């Protein structure tokens, strides 16, 4: 990948980074020279360009560094060797594993699911009891290409059935209620840079807890939002001074509540200046079509591929999948909608990466906080369960099932929930060691006690 030389002209670092992105990216927007000024506002061109190109990037934990340092850190990291990328995709609410991969070949399935049982479709080559949900045609195709590893019953023993608790365990990588850093956050604390917030990126309105770090900065980008500020009848130089003054409000009073408000004002000030030149909606082009949807998920993935192609120094990325998975009622339609868009988007993302020659650098991990009860609840729905389904997607995955489907006869626990045949912490340990190449013991509590399934070919 070619890259602009870092010291060849008088451009600011910021402009340099912008230019490097525009050149390296296959379609990220160059700064458009002919962009019109809004009539009569008195805005300067510099400012208008900046505000019109900025995405709303929230930086977490970089408060010791000025925006210039972060920007230089990003530029420096972008010039370094390309890191492997892990993309975490969360099916929020507890996806019903027994519908995602329906055990139609299990004699008890129809008894436990008289209303909800799915029929037909395609069985997995590795286990002819299990059938792909009809909305997952895309994943099924990738599976046939050996680009999907299936985890039919992943979780942990004595699964907690609270959304919040179980999700927390998965996020922190331990069954510890008080752990405050995410498993990816602790990994980044070990290997990350203290000036590159893009190394841990949430494509969401707020930071994914799995990325929460103790030391190094990470970031979230909500999408195409523009990070602009305006006040009626304040223009030109006065407006510039007003916006600068946001930073002046970020002083450090003794009162904790005031300090919180002041700190955010200081962050806002930095962020307003640190504008990163990409837009996720229409500002870049993708080599493959993505699904059209109200949900931002496909566009976020499209933007992610464009950012990777542009050489932005991403490392761990987290997104929430579209759809409602807490299907206590009305499960068939809700699940179909969510799975369809998730699967179609992931396939488009995979093809995009392949077209851009980036596929070998990216591994996608799809997970949910638990599965659902084996017996349906009678409202066309299912209640909270234990083990659920997971997937790993990418050209470098083994494509070999991890843990078997335990069967509905012997594979249910005392509560009638599917028992786990693979552990989420085992998956994390393998990803840390086989994908990132670090010792899992440095990141995961009790790492030695977990098996290491082979996940990366």
């Amino acid at each position: 990948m070619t890259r602009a030389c870092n010291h060849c002209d008088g451009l600011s670092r910021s402009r340099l980074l912008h230019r490097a992105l525009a050149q390296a990216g296959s379609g990220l927007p160059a700064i458009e020279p002919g962009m019109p000024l809004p009539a009569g506002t008195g805005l300067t061109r510099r400012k208008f360009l900046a505000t019109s190109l900025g995405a709303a990037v929230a930086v977490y934990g970089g408060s010791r560094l000025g925006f210039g340092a972060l920007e230089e850190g990003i530029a420096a990291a972008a010039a370094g060797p390309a890191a492997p990328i892990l993309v975490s995709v969360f099916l929020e609410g507890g996806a019903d594993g027994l519908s995602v991969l329906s055990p139609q070949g299990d004699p008890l399935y129809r008894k436990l699911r008289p209303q909800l049982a799915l029929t037909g479709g395609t069985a997995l080559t590795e286990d002819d009891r299990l059938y792909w949900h009809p909305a997952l045609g895309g994943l099924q195709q990738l599976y046939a290409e050996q680009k999907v590893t299936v985890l039919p019953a992943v979780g942990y023993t004595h699964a907690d059935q609270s959304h919040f608790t179980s999700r927390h365990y998965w996020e922190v990588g331990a069954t510890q209620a008080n752990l405050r850093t995410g498993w990816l956050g602790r990994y980044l604390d070990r290997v990350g840079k203290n000036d590159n917030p893009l190394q841990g990126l949430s494509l969401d309105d707020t930071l994914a807890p799995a990325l929460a770090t103790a030391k190094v900065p990470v970031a979230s980008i909500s999408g195409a939002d523009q990070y602009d500020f305006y006040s009626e009848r304040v223009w030109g130089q006065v407006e510039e001074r007003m916006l600068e003054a946001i930073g002046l409000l970020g002083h450090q009073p003794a009162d904790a509540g005031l300090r919180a408000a002041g700190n955010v004002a200081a962050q806002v000030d930095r962020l307003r200046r640190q504008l990163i030149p990409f837009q996720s909606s229409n500002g870049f082009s993708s080599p493959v079509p993505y699904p059209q949807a109200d949900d931002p998920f496909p566009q976020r993935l499209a933007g992610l591929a464009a950012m990777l192609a542009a050489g932005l120094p991403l490392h761990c990325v987290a997104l929430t999948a579209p759809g409602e998975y807490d299907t206590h009622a009305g499960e068939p339609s809700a699940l179909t909608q969510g799975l369809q868009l998730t699967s179609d988007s992931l396939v488009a993302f995979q093809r995009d990466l392949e077209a851009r020659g980036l596929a070998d650098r990216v591994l996608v991990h799809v997970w949910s906080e638990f599965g659902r009860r084996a017996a349906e609840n009678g409202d066309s729905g299912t209640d909270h369960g234990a083990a659920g389904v997971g997937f790993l997607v990418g050209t470098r995955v083994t494509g070999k099932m991890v843990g078997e489907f335990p069967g509905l006869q012997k594979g249910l626990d005392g509560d009638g929930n599917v028992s786990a045949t693979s552990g989420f912490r085992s998956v994390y340990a393998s990803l840390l060691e086989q994908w990132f190449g670090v010792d899992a013991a440095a990141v995961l509590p009790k790492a030695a006690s977990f098996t290491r399934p082979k996940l990366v070919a």
Partner: protein
Amino acid sequence: VWRGKFDVARAERLLWRAGFGPRPGEAQKLARLGLDGAVHKLTHPGREHLVGHRPHDERGLPLAPFDAWGHDHVWWLDRMVRTSRPLVERMTLLWHDWFATSNSGVGSQRLMLNQNHLFRERGLGSFHELLLDVTQDPAMLLWLNGSDNSKDSPNENYAREMMELFTLGADRGYTENDVRQQARALTGFRNSWNQNTGPVNFRYDPQYHDTGRKTIFHHHGRFTWKDSCRLCVTHPDHASFFVRKLWSYFVAGAPDHATQRALERLYKSSRYEVRPVVAAILRHPALYTGARLVKPPVVYNAGLLRRIRRGIDTTAWTWLDSMAGQQLFYPPNVAGWDDTRWLDTATWRGRWWIAQYVLDRHALDPGHAHQPYDAKKLLDQACEFWHHPPLGRDTRQALHTFAQRALHDAKGESWKREQYPVMIQNALRQLIAVSPELQAA
């Protein structure tokens, strides 16, 4: 009980914690009552009367809170702005967060507003009765699948959240078996569907109730939904949960051990009445000496409007408050809003835009208005506009620095010396509104 001076600053803090901040002169009036008098007035407000102009949308038409998108939000915001019973309205908001029900799962603004009315009517009464009412509230029955829960197909959603989020706290004093047994006890609620109007005819139908024996918290019996509520409220771990959660809405940081115990005793001895516990919290020294709390976005928004006596004349507040992280009737999940995380770089920008919209029609025209070419006078006038909010020295210094720098830019050109002070005045009002002192109280 707070024994220190109950001055205007403390009265103002009380009005922020127990309401939506003062209208001009209100803090002074309240301070004259003394602490006990002030708390009594807030907790025994009498009949509500609404002060100020009736709300309307940007075209001057009345709001349609049952029907038009976003009108539900501004309808309630109007109550917050105009009410004579700020604590009642604040408790309504508190219960909306506590029993967080989202219209994203209910799909009926009418049912959501009915639930809102329930919180307003019952918010200072008995928690036990409130829980009973919430359990059979149609919006809640839809939201947590209560009317899908029947003896043949128990649905655990409400049973679980009732204990985890509403009465006991996660993993406190109940087991997975209790969840299942509670779900059985809670069976029997039904509703019908009408193709045109959606969910209708909410009822309790004994035919759908599981009359069998249940074991809940080691008690045995043929429990019904009323027993279910009673067992939660009388559970030994309930009072501590209730007190800690209620306290967290009013005071930064957890109560000390003695306070926690005293409030628990008060709560139990009053037979689960909310009003005495709230009154005790409002009179507690920690409320006046502790750190400030970041205002929830709607409190911030209503407070700015009250400060300048502006009523609801646009529905823009719906999306603006949503930008700041709080669209009423749409809490992010069943656990409600996270009151420790109101502010981040995105929601702060939402507050900037709220302030911008509050100010827009007051913006002075640099071509016509006149303002002094003097930083201090400009700042004093901007404070005057907001009726003298309590700004700290650092903030005043920051604003003064801004005004001076901007005035300096105007040197040398006569049109700038005319127009810049006007724009600086507009900018100062904006900056005051987003200053730390107006974000946290």
